[in-house]
């Protein structure tokens, strides 16, 4: 298929803005989610992630800006886009007096693009896929938070989708459930589904995502493939040596700025000397310079920035929710 660049994107927004009264929840963001990617949508609580998702799914209308999902403009083509999209939005929502199975059947019957003759089989398959078959007949009010979360994910999987949006999918899940969600996302990607995962938990995103975007106070502060994002962060060299002062001298000569060490060496015990390093300077140059200067190098590594470092750098530390 020789479609233009637009068709390569599962989600595309230009200047997407959403205001509630005077408060701007989302401020002119340009999202570009490639097809087939696992896209991590990151940001602290209250940064506008869920509002963005609501606009992407047609639950709320954008104040301004353009949105297209699966190559179709919204909200105009919403009715033909949504059957191809599965979603878990801000926690599950079910009728407590119905069983998990009955809940899924009801939600499935709302979709006019699926066949009702396969409904029972598809519901059972989705329940099985999230490991809820044993509780299919139980009323949802008897479900634990984690089970409800699984049921919400099952709802997104009732039919094969081109795009699956998971808003905080691992909320309320135990570590085992979190792992299962990761495996599930991987299997979805293997089927060619684009997965859009929002989360404030970085570790889980970092493990499964190919791309990510970071929100802060309604603004998109970073976006790209995970490798690009990591590269944007600061790498550093770490040298393990008893000759810390000599090592620091060598590093300074190479143009690096060693950081203040945690401890000073006494000439016998190993201490760590570290300094930020850019891609211009090859790590092997550093090692050979250190060895040439007689520094006893007992350990050496180039530490790439983690997504968490980047996340904290972009969104700030601590629990303060930016208004």
């Amino acid at each position: 298929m020789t479609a233009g660049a637009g068709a390569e994107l599962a989600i595309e927004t230009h200047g997407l803005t959403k205001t509630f009264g005077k408060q701007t929840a989302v401020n002119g963001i340009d999202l570009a989610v490639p097809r087939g990617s696992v896209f991590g949508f990151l940001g602290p609580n209250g940064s506008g992630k869920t509002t963005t998702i609501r606009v992407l799914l047609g639950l709320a209308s954008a104040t301004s800006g353009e949105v297209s999902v699966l190559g179709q403009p919204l909200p105009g083509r919403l009715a033909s886009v949504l059957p191809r999209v599965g979603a878990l939005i801000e926690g599950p929502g079910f009728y407590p007096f119905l069983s998990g199975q009955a809940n899924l059947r009801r939600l499935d019957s709302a979709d006019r693009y699926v066949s009702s003759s396969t409904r029972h089989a598809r519901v059972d398959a989705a329940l099985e896929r999230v490991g809820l078959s044993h509780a299919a007949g139980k009323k949802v009010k008897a479900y634990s938070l984690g089970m409800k979360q699984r049921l919400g994910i099952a709802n997104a999987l009732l039919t094969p989708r081109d795009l699956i949006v998971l808003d905080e999918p691992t909320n309320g899940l135990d570590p085992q459930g979190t792992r299962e969600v990761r495996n599930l996302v991987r299997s979805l990607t293997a089927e060619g589904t684009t997965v859009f995962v929002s989360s404030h938990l970085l570790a889980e995103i970092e493990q499964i995502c190919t791309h990510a975007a970071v929100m802060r106070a309604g603004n998109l502060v970073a976006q790209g493939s995970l490798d690009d994002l990591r590269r944007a962060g600061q790498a550093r060299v770490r040298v393990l040596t008893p000759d810390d002062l000599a090592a620091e001298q060598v590093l300074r000569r190479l143009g690096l700025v060693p950081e203040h060490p945690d401890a000073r060496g006494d000439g016998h015990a190993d201490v760590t000397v570290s300094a930020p390093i850019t891609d211009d300077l090859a790590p092997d140059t550093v090692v050979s310079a250190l060895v040439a200067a007689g520094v006893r190098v007992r350990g050496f590594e180039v530490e790439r920035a983690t997504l968490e470092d980047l996340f904290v750098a972009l969104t700030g530390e601590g629990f303060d929710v930016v208004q």
Partner: protein
Amino acid sequence: MSSEIAPESAPEHPNAGDTAAVQPLAAGASAEHPLSAGASTEHPLDGAYVALARPRAGWAFLGSEIAVLFRRRRTWVMLIALAAIPVLIAVAVRISSAGSTPGRGPAFLGQITNNGLFVGLVALIICIPLFLPLTIGVVAGDTIAGEASSSTLRYLLVAPVGRARLLLVKFVAAAAFCVAATLVIIVAGALIGAALFPIGSVTLLSGDTVSLGEAGVRALLIAAYVTLSLLGLTAIGMFISTLTDIPVGAMAATVVVSIISQVLDSLPQLDWLHPWLFTHYWLDFADLLRQPIDWSSFGSNALLQLAYVAVFGALAFGRFSTKDILS
């Protein structure tokens, strides 16, 4: 996905391909991942999921809505409470040996001892001003606000149900409750009346006597009249329900509206307003008990209720179709 609704599936997605109408959901894709625990091979699907090119009529969702409504314990409690009213009346009349004083109590009360069929009619007259609006208020006020408060509204809309279709289905289901509520009173009245009093041919208001079967038809006509009477209030309740995420508020507001309308209808100073009040014809079904039937009040009532349904249905759609769903 069919080619019509997935025209731009990129080639690198084997399962979302434009011609791949048949997609193996269970047997193929999920077999190797741990969540399905190897059970997917026994699955009845056998790779037979077919996405539909064109949307179906969607009767299944209406069926689901009605099933959910009538599976709720709350609905049953309301219907049982309504059924209890004719029973209460019949038992009270039966055990009071004094008999009734003409002119006291609701219309037709004095007829019950002669003919048990009148129990249902008396019960309807008692229920119309308050009990029936109360139950309709609960059902109609819950339509949208109830889904919003249980967080199911966003999932229905994303399914996608379509906002106009959701309103339509909700209204039809609420109307089905109106039918059930009225029929429950009439049928419970007929049963308890037959059990406690003699039944037989019925003397109509015009003095004619009709057979038991014909009387049953008249009773059903009255049930239809009362059901129709409640549709305007149902539409009002549904509109109020689109304004809030708190179902109890919408329910209470709906009941209050029906009471205000009845109060206004009782003020002679507002004579000019009366024909426009949706409660105005609520008790005017006596014309159905004449021979031949006088259809004029039935027609006026139908017209008025349809107008209310049209106006408040449009208001509900206007509000709901542009509403940001943040619940």
